[in-house]
């Protein structure tokens, strides 16, 4: 798995000496070394005419790489500044860094693989920066911590931007390091430089900074990691001057790395939480509706505890939600068709406007506990409408659940307990009826070809039911069949959708989920649309190259079928006939052979499977390979919806 390079002999003695010294130095610095100015001084802000690269570096006591090499031969103590950057990154609990290589971070790249020995973080080779970002997105959700991506200035960051955007909308942390040649000397690298590099992704990052000194790099890296992981979470971005990476440090002892201290997530105000508990305990028909609540398995357990304590139904929200409550739990759902909530508790819902309006119209109350109040976003309209709730608590819901549960427990009397249990029995009956009815629907078209989506999902579920499985793709293109047919009985079963409702997440993020699951004994699967797969097929190679085991089941309906109807509707609204709606929306003539594509990237693959009775054997064969530790793909010709 590790990609250790054999090039270390070129820097042998000096680097080993530095490693030894750095280990001691870093330990001391993290604890109590006072702040000192770095030997690498900041690049001057350009005012009149930019200095040459050599002149700029000379002003800082630095040198161009060739000159630096000459200087290094003069003093064995001079070491690459990017080695110090690796020391900093190693304090941040980063297991992986996903890259598509770029010369603007080649210094850091070299230090990661040689000085850092390609360990923690280990480098993942990606075929596109968007894939690096999407892998990082999926990984963070499943691992519960961010990974890093490194990208080239402008071009690499622009390629990565869509994946960063999706993670932003999904409130998922990611450490984005952007190499920046601030003093370009040729027409080739001038377009890769910018006055304000962070601005390119600022609309969908939580925080960004540009490091032009090593001190500033150390502080900014720790800040970026800390801010990104503090709810509401999100990607953070650190621009790193390429000349700084390539510069030499003459006195390592003058540099320090700030100690990482993760802040406790924000909890709800005590009095507000008490009021929420009072409303919920006194409600006749409470409803809990949830967004992205359970960041951790503990959050999952707390959600179950809350629901069972109140005997209240839990509605797992829209496509944007993570699966934060077991779908087979008898309290899962809205409580039945006749259930009219008088108090609705929204947890991490960024938009309760409609719920609040409806509740007010019916004399009901709404409560919102949501970290979104602490960050209303920037340019992207993903922060929802203003919600006229009766009680708003700006806090992380998972962190607030223990105090809410404790207060509810304190308020429940034996009489209320009896009433709650009676309510719970009715909700359980409604849950059973609803789920059974949904299952009845799955029978229709059971043996048709192309294969129905429900059969595709059910056959997959049957093959993995005895594994500790985890699904890395979302469900926006498979209707609600995943929730109906798969048993989400553990926190790690499902990691939700893409966040930004953009195509191209499922295939790529699933690799990140599988990476997080690797070595845990979990089996990762992903149901990916053909349209989605075409946005990042190169991710298949990354999975094969790094031996990341997962099954890709391609839901191949040969088109952007959701769009077909939308275009048809537009055609008909304008009275121009719907016959041309296939233009621009379907993927045939020629049909795309995903089996060959996957095989070309080094995966075991088979298909297209058109006969529903041949699907199970195909899945079995592919899963043999996945359980043995490699990725595999099965292409299934499926119904459109």
């Amino acid at each position: 798995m590790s990609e250790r390079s054999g090039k270390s002999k070129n820097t042998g003695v000096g680097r080993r000496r530095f490693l030894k010294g750095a280990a001691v130095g870093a330990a001391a610095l993290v604890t109590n070394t006072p702040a000192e100015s770095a030997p690498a001084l900041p690049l001057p802000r350009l005012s009149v005419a930019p200095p040459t690269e050599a002149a700029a570096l000379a002003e800082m006591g630095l040198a161009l790489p060739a000159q630096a090499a000459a200087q290094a031969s003069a003093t064995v103590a001079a070491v690459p500044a990017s080695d110090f950057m690796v020391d900093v990154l190693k304090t941040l609990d980063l297991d992986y860094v996903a890259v598509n290589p770029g010369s603007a971070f080649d210094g850091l790249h070299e230090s990661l693989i040689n000085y850092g020995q390609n360990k923690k973080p280990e480098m993942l080779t990606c075929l596109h920066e968007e894939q690096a970002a999407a892998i990082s997105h999926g990984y963070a959700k499943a691992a519960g911590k961010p990974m890093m991506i490194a990208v080239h200035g402008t071009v690499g960051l622009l390629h990565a931007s869509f994946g960063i955007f999706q993670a932003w909308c999904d409130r998922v942390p990611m450490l984005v390091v952007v190499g920046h040649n601030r003093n370009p000397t040729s027409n080739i690298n001038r377009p890769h430089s910018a006055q304000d590099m962070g601005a390119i992704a600022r609309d969908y990052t939580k925080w960004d900074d540009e490091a032009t000194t090593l001190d500033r790099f150390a502080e900014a890296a720790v800040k970026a990691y800390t801010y990104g992981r503090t709810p509401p979470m999100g990607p953070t971005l650190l621009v790193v001057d390429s000349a700084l990476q390539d510069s030499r440090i003459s006195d390592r002892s003058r540099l320090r790395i700030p100690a990482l201290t993760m802040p406790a997530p924000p909890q709800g105000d005590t009095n507000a939480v008490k009021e929420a508990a009072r409303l919920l305990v006194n409600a006749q028909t409470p409803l809990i509706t949830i967004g992205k609540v359970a960041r951790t398995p503990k959050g999952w357990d707390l959600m179950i505890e809350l629901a069972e304590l109140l005997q209240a139904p839990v509605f797992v929200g829209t496509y944007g939600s993570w699966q934060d409550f077991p779908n087979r739990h008898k309290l899962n759902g809205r409580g039945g068709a006749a259930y009219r909530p008088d108090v609705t508790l929204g947890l991490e819902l960024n938009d309760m406007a409609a719920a609040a309006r409806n509740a007010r119209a019916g004399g009901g109350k709404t409560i919102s506990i949501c970290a979104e109040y602490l960050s209303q976003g920037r340019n992207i309209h993903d922060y929802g409408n203003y919600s006229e709730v009766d009680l708003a608590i700006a806090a992380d819901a998972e962190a607030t659940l223990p105090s809410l549960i404790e207060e509810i427990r304190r308020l429940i009397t034996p009489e209320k307990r009896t009433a709650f249990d009676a309510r719970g029995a009715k909700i359980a009956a409604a849950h059973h009826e609803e789920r059974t009815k949904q299952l009845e629907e799955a029978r229709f078209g059971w043996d048709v070809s192309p294969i129905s989506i429900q059969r595709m999902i059910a056959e997959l579920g049957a093959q993995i039911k005895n594994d500790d499985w985890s699904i890395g793709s979302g469900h926006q293109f498979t209707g609600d069949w995943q929730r109906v047919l798969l048993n989400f009985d553990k926190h790690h079963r499902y990691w939700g959708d893409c966040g930004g409702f953009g195509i191209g997440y499922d295939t790529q993020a699933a690799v990140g989920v599988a990476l997080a699951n690797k070595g845990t004994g979990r089996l990762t699967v992903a149901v990916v649309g053909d349209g989605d797969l075409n946005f990042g097929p190169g991710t298949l190679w990354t999975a094969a190259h790094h031996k990341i085991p997962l099954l890709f089941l391609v839901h191949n309906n040969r088109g952007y079928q959701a769009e077909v109807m939308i275009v048809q509707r537009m055609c008909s609204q304008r009275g121009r006939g719907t016959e041309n709606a296939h233009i621009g929306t379907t993927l045939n003539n020629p049909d795309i052979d995903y089996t060959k594509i996957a095989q070309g990237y080094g995966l075991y693959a088979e298909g297209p499977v058109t006969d529903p009775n041949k699907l199970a054997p195909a899945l079995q064969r592919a899963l043999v390979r996945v359980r043995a530790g490699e990725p595999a793909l099965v292409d299934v010709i499926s119904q459109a919806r």
Partner: protein
Amino acid sequence: MKVAALSLIVAMILPSMMTGRQAQDSVANLTGNVERGKTLFTAAFKCASCHGTTGESGSPRLVPMRRTQADFIRFVQKPTANAMPAFGDQPPQALADVYAYIKSIPERTPPSVQSIPVLNDVLKTIP
């Protein structure tokens, strides 16, 4: 030639001169062509995008078709369901062809959940 042209004009004008009831009767009396309807259903109108290639697996299911031909044509031309695109500019004959195709799909009673092992396994997990 003149006769043909006259027939065409009459055919174009006549529907507008009909009363609502007459028009409904005329739509109801159209004879659909199953083969043409299948082509329209699967290729031209892309009905399968939502309703499945055989009308059985999608949402909503079209088999069994409970609407009358006249009701079907009226609905498809001006749907009351938000998600359904309107086919108001399609001639009634084309929609009658689609109707004929849907009606030709044999109505099959799906197997029970209990008789499909993988679904029966799911059923056992529902509390």
